[in-house]
């Protein structure tokens, strides 16, 4: 049943995007977590963190990885910003975090944990 060509054998077109306005992480009390279809892990051979999902991979830069480490389904956006500010006092953490969470959400890497 070899029918679905893996991503690189095809000239696949990806057109789906999500609206920026829909981003749930504009709310400071939203709790981001890695989407259940995705996995976030350290890759020894590549010396970087990656996001893995069905038939795909994204390599992450250092700051993206630092933010995703905290997207553990336990911390709110506000707590996450506070934590990172303590680690990186010189950076404009709040703006970076909000911008990155938006991108991560659009790409489907993270989702909001439903408050129970």
């Amino acid at each position, binding site marked *: *049943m*070899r*029918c*679905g*060509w*893996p991503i*690189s*054998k*095809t*000239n*696949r*077109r*990806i*057109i*789906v*995007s*999500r*609206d920026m306005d*829909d981003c749930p992480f504009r709310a400071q009390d939203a709790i981001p977590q890695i989407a*259940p*279809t995705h*996995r976030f*892990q350290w*890759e*020894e*051979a*590549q*010396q*970087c963190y*990656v996001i*893995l*999902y*069905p*038939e*795909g*991979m*994204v*390599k*992450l*830069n*250092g700051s*993206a*990885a630092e933010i995703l480490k905290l997207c553990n389904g336990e911390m709110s956006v506000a707590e996450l910003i506070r934590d990172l500010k303590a680690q990186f006092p010189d950076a404009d953490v709040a703006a970076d975090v909000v911008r990155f969470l938006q991108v991560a959400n659009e790409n*489907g890497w993270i989702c909001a944990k439903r408050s129970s």
Partner: protein
Amino acid sequence: MAGSAQNARPKPLWLLAELTYKCPLQCPYCSNPADFAKYKDELSTEDWLRVLRQARAMGATQLGLSGGEPLARRDLETLIAEARRLGFYTNLITSGVGMDEARVRAFREAGLDHIQLSFQAATLELNDYIAGTNAFQHKKEMAHAVKKHGFPMVLCFVLYRENEDQIEHMLELAIRLEADYVELATTQYYGWAFLNRDRLMPTRAQIEQGERIAHAYQEKMKGKMKIYYVVPDYYEQRPKACMNGWGSIFLTITPDGTALPCHAARQLSGLLFPNVRDHSIEWIWNDSPDFNRFRGFEWMKAPCRSCPERFKDFGGCRCQAYMLTGDAANADPVCSLSPQHGLIEKALESAREANRSEKPLIFRNPKNSKPFVEKKRPLART
């Protein structure tokens, strides 16, 4: 993005394990080699476990478990468990035939990450005709089981002339089955699909209509279901960046242990691909002559050699160049800059003719494979 030692050696990030050529289905668009019946000596569980460990150590992250029908391997659960333990993202690429709910649960327990389930069409009649067996109802049941056990699910519909007009039906079916991703993939012409090209090739009007419908659903399903629509390269002016370049990220291991830079490469004449029974993945990937044969840009002929687009498309697909022009080092004739681009025009013309003459489909099964094993029929037409 980080991790960018740009000049570092390429890594086999994508490992495609074709566990077996056995398959209960007979799809005439299968990309397995036409002479698959000659490869009977399948790798053992131990062999596969060694391949997984070696490839993972070299940086492989994605593992595709495919075939044939991978469910035909009884050690599938064992392989999944080890792959997951090693840190692979494990993808099961299946027809669903050979699965039941207990097995879906077992895959979950073994740590499988994702299931890609194929359909041959959106209607029972056409699905089961193309599959060569009654499978449609079972596939729907399996889709429910896959979702019930919490897997992300990709539904894969291979498109060909007879089902290309069912795209709307396919997408509605996918919505009902709660697919996370839908792949509408027009047949690529390798293996059995190449033999049946005249019958499978959709018309340009069908493709344009299909694209319109796919786009409308992409809008409608935004944020809920991802939809990929793959256009056949015969209708393009530039070739696909096949496998992201030869020996660049992709490694296929066939059921008998032959290592290939792409699952269609086995047919390329003059190359004797190495086997994992004789060599380590490290040697195969880094040092074997065949994996280096079309790496980089040195091997290219005109017009690719001096083309500014060679860094983007790597000259297209080596297998397509070989199948259509007889020389794997030629430019992929899909490219309008190729001096042999006329072959593509001819293929499209031939498909239009066949549309009228109703040439029979050759179904993928051991019986139909035999003439190719005995070399009574050529594998490529040049």
